[in-house]
């Protein structure tokens, strides 16, 4: 979709999105749905503020960012479970995971109300890079498990990167409780692929270069508490999952949004 990492492009689009949102408010409920169907703009808007250098994103922007991620996960598992690709044993668990992700979507949409972004259109082949739902293409290390792992590990880091922006709000509790569920999902999928349930250093066990960014920086050892000038190093990075910024998360998601 959009070249979101191109800053000028992004800012131009985001400004347009903000203008549209302003227009949206003026238009009221009548025009709301039509205007928000332009999902890339809505996403760019949410992302711009998550990127924001000077000011932290609003709660609405953080939740729309989370909603976009949940849309992706829910749709991924919906298509996966309809594909006939997973084993029947796997599918029992994937149905439960799909239900969790859909519940997250429902929760975030209900919380956001009229401010909720619409679901983007997803392409889980990422333009032909993957073939996750093809029953004829299930090898020993199938794409659908690589995608599931990357999405779940990404989700853990994405929520972790936003919890500080939700400090003191009513939705922090739910965000934390989604975050730990994503970690349970991630660990499960990693185990299905016979990898450790946790991330070793910054190892990208999908071996897909497109997912290097999901694991980059996972081996960070420096920990900071800026308000008290505290810096402490940890010894074993595997024992800690690191956050990603909204920008880093969207750069990965971008490939799967049409």
């Amino acid at each position, binding site marked *: 979709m959009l070249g979101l990492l191109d800053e000028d492009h992004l800012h131009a689009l985001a400004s347009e999105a903000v203008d549209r949102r302003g227009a949206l408010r003026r238009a009221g409920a009548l025009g709301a749905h039509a205007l928000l169907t332009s999902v890339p703009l809505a996403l760019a808007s949410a992302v711009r503020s998550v990127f924001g250098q000077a000011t932290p994103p609003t709660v609405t922007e953080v939740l729309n960012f989370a909603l976009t991620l949940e849309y992706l996960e829910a749709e991924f598992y919906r298509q996966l479970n309809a594909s006939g690709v997973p084993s029947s044993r796997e599918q029992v668990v994937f149905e439960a995971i799909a239900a969790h992700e859909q519940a997250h979507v429902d929760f975030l949409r209900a919380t956001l109300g009229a401010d909720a972004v619409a679901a983007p259109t997803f392409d889980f082949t990422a333009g032909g890079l993957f073939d996750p739902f093809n029953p004829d293409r299930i090898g020993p290390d199938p794409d659908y498990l690589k995608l599931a792992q990357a999405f779940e590990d990404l989700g853990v880091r994405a929520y972790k990167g936003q919890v500080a922006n939700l400090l003191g709000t009513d939705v922090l509790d739910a965000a934390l409780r989604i975050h730990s569920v994503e*970690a349970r*999902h991630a660990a499960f999928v990693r185990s299905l692929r016979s990898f450790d349930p946790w991330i070793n250093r910054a190892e990208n066990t999908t071996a897909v270069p497109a997912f290097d960014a999901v694991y980059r920086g996972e081996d960070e050892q420096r920990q900071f508490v800026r308000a008290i000038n505290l810096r402490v190093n940890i010894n074993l990075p595997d024992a800690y999952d690191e956050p990603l910024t909204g920008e880093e998360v969207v750069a990965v998601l971008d490939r799967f949004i049409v």
Partner: protein
Amino acid sequence: MPSDPNCAVSHRAVSRRRFLRLGGVAASAAVLAACDSDNEDSDGIEPEDEVVFDFATDFGVLNFALALAQVQAALYTTTTQAPYVGAQTEEQALLDQMLAHENDHRRFLRTAIETAGATPIPALRVDLRTVSFTDRTSVLTTAQQLEDLSVAAYNAAALAVSDPDWLTILGKIVSVEARHATAIRGLIGGDTLFAIGAEDDPATQAVDPGTGLERASSLAEILDRAAPFFTAPLRAVNLPS
């Protein structure tokens, strides 16, 4: 660390106190800072000494997290040193890593609390007498309870934190605890709904099937569930409402 004379003195001194207030700025606990040890067998506080976690400061939260890491490390230390009957190489490798993770959480939390000028709890005396360490089910079920409890504890405790960076740091640890919980659940039940905490049994279920959210407990409930694993009584003050 019995070899540390200061530590021995401070433990004797502390054992005479009715309350040991941790997490705040109470001077009575300050002498313990130098005595925290990686050795779970070192003399902890006497059983009659109450351990108080003061959630009025972020350090109360961090000390509570440290206490949970201590009991998990104690469980994994014991079971990796003397594996249960029928222990497979692969699951031992997982338990070894989980021990290393918990030990790193302990070191990091203690160092962070100290470096920030607050007082970490000492190595608390852990009570694992209910665990039959020769029995795989007993060990793994206890591990599962502790990992699930730890996830719920971090999720609840994070709501009491006031600094955004501490909140993020707690987030870095809780997701690894959730990964541990899944690993242990997988060892118990294989690749099933149980592994992701989505089993039907509400007594053990980790994820609410209706909301897809981690099941939550209040810090008071979590303290009650953690209490049997420590010889000292635990008490929380200034819990978030």
